């Protein structure tokens, strides 16, 4: 039982299982697409065959992962504080995506810098505010004004 548990925690075994799941998902989601024939392939021909090949390759990875004596996948993240910084950065990015269209580029970008510099990067308030304002304002001028890139203005802007 213990050996099976440790086998399932190995990196290649976990990757194999995840990719097998992904292949199954791709196969199921391509369910209604016409497969056609070998000589006249339909829209579902490539997705379904690729899902099949992926499932086979993922199964091979799973088996080879079970056979090799590698450490646990949990060992890939040894530093808890490092993991917290990664999680914080991802959370900041997700938050950015969620609010940028509503709050607009300038406000959201300033907030992203505040979070990244003050709470994740542990910088002082003076550096945080200076960099946040300069970066958001400067990038807005560069992209939106000079290079005419359309950036989200925010729904609160008339």
């Amino acid at each position, binding site marked *: 039982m213990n050996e099976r548990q440790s086998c399932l925690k190995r*990196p*290649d075994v*976990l*990757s194999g299982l995840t*990719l097998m799941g*992904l292949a199954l998902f*791709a196969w199921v989601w*391509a369910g209604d*697409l*016409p497969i056609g*024939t*070998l*000589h*006249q*392939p*339909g*829209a*579902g021909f*490539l*997705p379904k065959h*690729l*899902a099949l090949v*992926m499932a086979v*390759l*993922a199964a*091979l*990875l799973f088996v080879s992962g079970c056979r090799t004596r590698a450490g646990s996948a949990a060992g*890939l*993240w040894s*530093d808890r*504080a*490092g*993991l917290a*910084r*990664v999680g914080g*950065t*991802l959370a900041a*990015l*997700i938050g*950015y*995506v969620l609010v*940028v*269209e509503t709050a607009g580029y300038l406000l959201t*970008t300033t907030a*992203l*810098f505040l979070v*990244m*510099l003050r709470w994740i*990067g*542990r*910088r002082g308030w003076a550096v945080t505010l200076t*960099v946040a304002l300069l*970066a958001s304002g400067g*990038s807005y001028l560069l*992209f939106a004004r000079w*290079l*005419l*890139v*359309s*950036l989200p203005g925010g729904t609160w802007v008339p």
Partner: protein
Amino acid sequence: MDTLQVLLHGFAVSLDPARIFYCFLGVVLGTIVGVLPGLGPSATIALLLPVTYRLDTVSAIIMLAGIYYGSQYGGSTTAILVRIPGESSSMVTCFDGYEMTRQGRAGPALGIAAISSFIAGTVAVVGLVLVAPPLGRFALAFGPAEYFSLMVLGLTLVAYLGGESLLKALLMAVLGLLLATVGQDPVAGVERYTFDTLALRDGIGLVPVFMGMFGIAEVLATMERPPDQQRLAAPTGFLPTRQDWHDARWPIARGTVVGFFLGILPGGGATVASIASYVTEKRFARNRDRMGKGAIEGVAGPEASNNAAATGSFIPLLTLGIPANVVMAMMLAALTLHGVRPGPLLMQERPDLFWGVITSMYLGNIVLLILNLPLVGLFVQILRIPYPILAPLILLFCLVGAYSTSGQVADVVVMVCFGLLGYLMRKFKFEAAPLILALILGKPMEESLRQALGISQGSFAIFATRPISLVLLLATAASLGAPVVGRALWRRERGSP
């Protein structure tokens, strides 16, 4: 007129002060859009098309051409410094370029990128002058069957991009091909894996994928390290050493040849050329064991290749009127807007335009070298910024880059998802390059396959009966078979007493 005469005529056209100015403006703009992620040359040319209507035709095309090949110079800067490819063709420059930066050798990496770009760009212009018409006709012989065989050959490069595990490389390639099927089916228009969202109807954008898998994933991986280990090594020396020159000369030569010929083929382009060059160096470079660990060959070859390809792609446009890629399609639009119909008669009807644009590229390449080399010292100063401050700046560039491709937040979502995927792939030791190569080749490959089968009424014999296609398939078999045979011979030798 013989070649020398037409060249002199071309120089007389391009050395006009106003045209020198537009050439300068074009390459400077190109360098800027190359450095800025997301803002590619096609978008810039599209933006500037109405402006060029006021210029004379030769000046307009000289400026637009400068934007394209200038962007190939600029694209490597962010790839080397912060692992964000400014252009898709700089993707492979990230591998060794960024490793060189981590070792404190950002200066030599940027220097060799600029110099190899200059050499390749200049040599490719000579090639353009000498062999443009016959090579243009060769490109015309490429139909769907030949493209499909070429793409299959391209996919075999996966075997060399995969790092330690071939199985993992193949898995990533299949995943890339599967991701390439997202969006409308290229023949029947049926939607696949769009989950009823408008944003995925055109498929997964390459720019958000690059930004995510390289830029975001790199930031996440660096942020994980303790703060005292986040800082990149202080840059030492701004120019390549004598040893760097020695190591880079053959990769530059090989990259130029590979890039020039792949640039001519429609669908090939600078991205595929740079990947092909990287793989060539992985097989032939003197220090091939160091590839991916900061070898200068991994910067010199691909950078030479993408510039040669950018120049080579002008051949089918100018001699046949066929755009080899999206940027060339924009150039075709610009020519049409100015009442010029490119094709076999362009050389006779508008020699001023044909040779003027070509000779302006010599000038543009010199300007780019003069412009880029002194900037190396300035660019490497970016690495002195503490990483906690640099990280949000990199994220900002990625966010704007992804958003600017379509003006939709959906592309930013795609980028963040691929950032997380790229980070996890690093952790679980999967290489990103096979996935990206397959994602690039997937759609045109399926399109060519189905078109070829349509032409042959479902017969696969079309791939074997057309000579170019057959040669490409044989090359594919040789490419796949060589490592297997080599390994078998090595085992036999090892086993023998």
